[in-house]
């Protein structure tokens, strides 16, 4: 009995294991560990419907962003285009398949799986949380979430496009197509999606 009360009122810092007493926080404020300044918790801010909207938008944008070229180059009358996966293939075709896989995972596969995973989670929370089968799927997805989030590197790819454009624009003409636009929008959607998403909150849904 006494230990249960204790469990509810304290939190352990995940970086240094310090016992910290929990307090109610105003919105938009984060609690930091007093000893090592690691993020402890913040106020739950996780609107399920908002995330559902972001997920669907991101999923719709995902396909044109990956199938249309992100960059187009005109050089001596010939036109060269590339998609993200095309870039990965070009590197892999030269024998550098480690690099190819890294690019493909970080910029295509992981973001796609991340969007699908969050969409499934949101749908389960919204409609099917009571059924044990879906609860299990939900748990499995939550366990993989931090890995997927770490692997998806859309923001870095975005900067890479800019760096490439600056490097090449001295020699030749570069054009942005519908693919670039979709990719930029996808990147913005995913940024907002990850801002809205709170893994601790998603886990705590299971306790209710």
């Amino acid at each position, binding site marked *: 009995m006494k230990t249960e009360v204790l469990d509810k009122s304290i939190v352990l810092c995940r970086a240094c294991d310090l016992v910290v007493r929990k307090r109610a926080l105003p919105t938009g404020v984060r609690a930091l560990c007093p*000893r090592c300044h690691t993020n402890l918790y913040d106020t739950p801010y996780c609107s399920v419907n908002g995330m559902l909207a972001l997920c669907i938008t991101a999923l719709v944008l995902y396909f044109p962003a990956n199938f249309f070229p992100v960059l187009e180059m005109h050089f001596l009358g010939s036109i060269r285009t590339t998609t993200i996966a095309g870039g990965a293939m070009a590197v892999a075709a*030269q024998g550098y398949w480690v*690099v190819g896989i890294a690019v493909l995972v970080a910029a295509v596969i992981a973001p796609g799986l991340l969007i699908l995973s969050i969409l499934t989670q949101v749908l389960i929370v919204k409609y099917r949380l009571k059924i044990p089968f879906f609860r299990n799927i939900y748990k499995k997805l939550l366990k993989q979430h931090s890995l997927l989030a770490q692997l998806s590197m859309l923001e870095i790819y975005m900067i890479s496009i800019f760096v490439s454009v600056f490097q090449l624009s001295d020699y030749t003409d570069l054009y942005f197509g519908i693919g670039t636009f979709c990719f930029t929008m996808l990147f913005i959607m995913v940024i907002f999606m990850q801002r809205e998403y709170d893994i601790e909150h998603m886990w705590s849904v299971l306790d209710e």
Partner: protein
Amino acid sequence: MSKLSRPPQGESLGLTNCPTCKFLCHLDQGSCPRCGQAVQSRDRTSVQKSWALLITAAILLFPANLYPITIMTSQGQVRQDTIFSGINHLVHLDLLPIAIILFTASILVPMLKIFGLALYLTAISYRLPISKKTLMAGFHIIEWIGRWSMLDLFVISITAALINMGQIWDAKPAPAATAFALVILLTQLAAKVLDTRLLWDRLESKDDTN
């Protein structure tokens, strides 16, 4: 509650966070009641794992920087660029901002990451005259900024895909690219496997008011 002479840690109360879902678990339960993951107060082998990954990464840093990372053919002339000579070339082309971005992402960040993690790991085993707060702040920065090294690989993949006009103009990756990719992967893993709580266990032994 006589142990209040030192800051209370979860371990002394028999509590720990679940490594997967951060649920507050009792150590004697053995596994997390919410997600089923086995719980453990400290992962003491994580220092060795982290060292192993880090040393491998440090070794790979040499081929990554000494071998060429791109092969450019321009009107029949072939030039091989290492990471550094490529950045140097950009400086000569007056693309200073791009050069700074690439220098940070592909030279500064990997080296700082390896150096910083080595320092952190040493501090777990030996006493160093650096405050733990600084070390922890550094660790968080390393964790966050490490992934930005991928920038160089993305740029290489974009240029390799766009520029393929044989003798006229051609860009290809070169051996250092694989080594560089592995350096990123291994250093990220080294930071991920490490149990940072180990550093703070030494806090109570006298010299630490920080």
